[in-house]
């Protein structure tokens, strides 16, 4: 088994990815407030984005400008994640709009309170 600190130094991004996904999913399941659930969803998505971006890394890689000498980092994951971020922003916007409507209707964002009121 390698030294955990050395592993953290060399694979820190993967540790952060695992933490973000885990914390995000936990908040999503555990939180009572609907807005906090949306925040958990965002954390979860950000973790996945980080995994993609990390996969583009290479030692001594530069920005992929053809006028510069290589080696380049892989630009494709960055492009994919730009798309995924746009998707994530749209989802968040719709989620918050729905949360506003839930609040207007029930006067609370707490899931347990809404359940008590009865649907």
């Amino acid at each position, binding site marked *: 088994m390698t030294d955990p600190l050395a592993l953290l130094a060399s694979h820190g991004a993967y540790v952060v990815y695992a933490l973000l*996904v885990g914390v995000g*999913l936990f908040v*999503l399941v555990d939180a009572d407030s*609907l807005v906090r*659930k*949306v925040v958990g*969803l965002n954390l*979860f*998505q950000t973790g*996945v984005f980080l*995994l*993609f971006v990390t*996969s583009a890394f290479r030692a001594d890689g530069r920005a992929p400008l053809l006028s510069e000498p290589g080696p380049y980092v892989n630009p*494709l*994951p960055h492009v*994919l994640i730009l*798309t*995924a971020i746009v*998707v994530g922003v*749209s*989802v968040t916007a*719709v*989620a918050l709009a*729905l*949360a506003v*409507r*839930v609040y*207007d*209707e*029930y006067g609370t964002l707490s899931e347990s309170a*809404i359940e008590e009121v009865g*649907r």
Partner: protein
Amino acid sequence: MSDLLALLVALPLVGALLPLVLGARRPGLARATTAALLLGQVALALVVAALVAAGGPLSYVVGGLPAAVGIGLLVDRVSAAFVLLVAVAGAGLYLGARADATGPGDSLWLLLVAGLTGVCVTADVFNLYVFLEISGLAAYALVATRRTGTAALAALQYLLVGTVGATFYLLGVGYMYIATGTLAMAELRPALAAVGYGSPLVVAAFAFVVVGLGVKLALFPVHAWKPDAYAAAPADVAALLAALGSTVAGYALVRLTFDVFTVGFLAAVPAARIGLLAAGVAGVAAGGYLTLLQSDVRRLFAYSSILQFGLVLLGVGLATATAVLAALVLLVANALAKGGLYVATGTLARDGATTVAGYAGRARDRPAVAASVAVALTSLVGLPPTVGFAGKWLLALAAVEAGAWVVASVVLASTMVSLAYAGRVVERLYLGEGGDARVPPAATDGGADAGPGRRAVATVAVVAVALVALGLGSTLLVDWLAPVVEVWI
């Protein structure tokens, strides 16, 4: 001619702007435009299907880039069938059942059709994620078009669960990309084999893809969004989502499992097959049990979908040619039956009946609707001469051929359970007393609903006829799908 593939997605996607712009000033024109676009989509789908029938699969790479880096579109016989299903259901339910059409609502309807068509035609796994999210966002917003707190809450829960599903799928795509360095389905197939099916990366990728699509399919235990969303949505939206939403995710699961990971993967990783079969059994058991507890008919039909998708998963898990054909036929059968049933619940809800008990004696006032509901339920149970029977027969046959006795008995048990819930609804409709004690339709709705009411009855009847026609012609459907499935397996 392969440019038509790009049009399949572009027509509803770009057209979705029109009703939004026209809706505020010229609502009539907006509705006519939406109807014309949806009918145009049906025509396009028919032309594409005819071209595929004549000359084999069509493919197209957006922007003319090489397929490995560009975004490819591909339509073979299986995708053509689902593209046609999406187009016909989108247009049929719009013309036949759409009530309270608004400009923005019609835009969302078109976006949903565009997203679902995209999932069916794409040959790129990341592109599939984007289309999954386009259709998902349109679906969440459509559920929330009924302006009640319940609808907003159900839409938000649906969004949270649906996005988690899509993100898990994206995670699977990430693992595939890290393992192979490509996203094109045709390139992934040999690349995944070269990496080795036992590689943890490949196994994790498969697990994440199945979990992600499983959420969209509402497999047990991530099924709770479905009854909430379908019960809270307006009847026309519930019909569209019940017909197409999970069906297309089911198509994506079949496509990825057999066209990207291939049966070689399933053979090399027995845990993957066992997981699929276990999820299928759990779906059948949970869906079947929960249907028996429901009093609200819309929730009952949603749980019936959970049972049906459990059966589809059993077909995928068995992974023989007959079983995969069974899964595809069951997807089509469930889509048709559920579309019709939710239109019927809308019609009966206008008369004030939303529960199984409330359906008592409705056949006397609504003979056509009741008869069609009975036919659709017959198909869900899997009795001849409907298309549901063809699907279930193939699945049972595949299970027996594979010697999978547990699966075979689960299929038979599912028929018993389906008979129990379907029998309960049909018995109430025809034999229940209390047709006179019904709540009269609200006076304000009477005038406005007369049109959609008649159209809806016609739609439900057409669905019932289609279920029987496809059942009698099920060999044609199987022969259409079989060449592609036989290449996979």
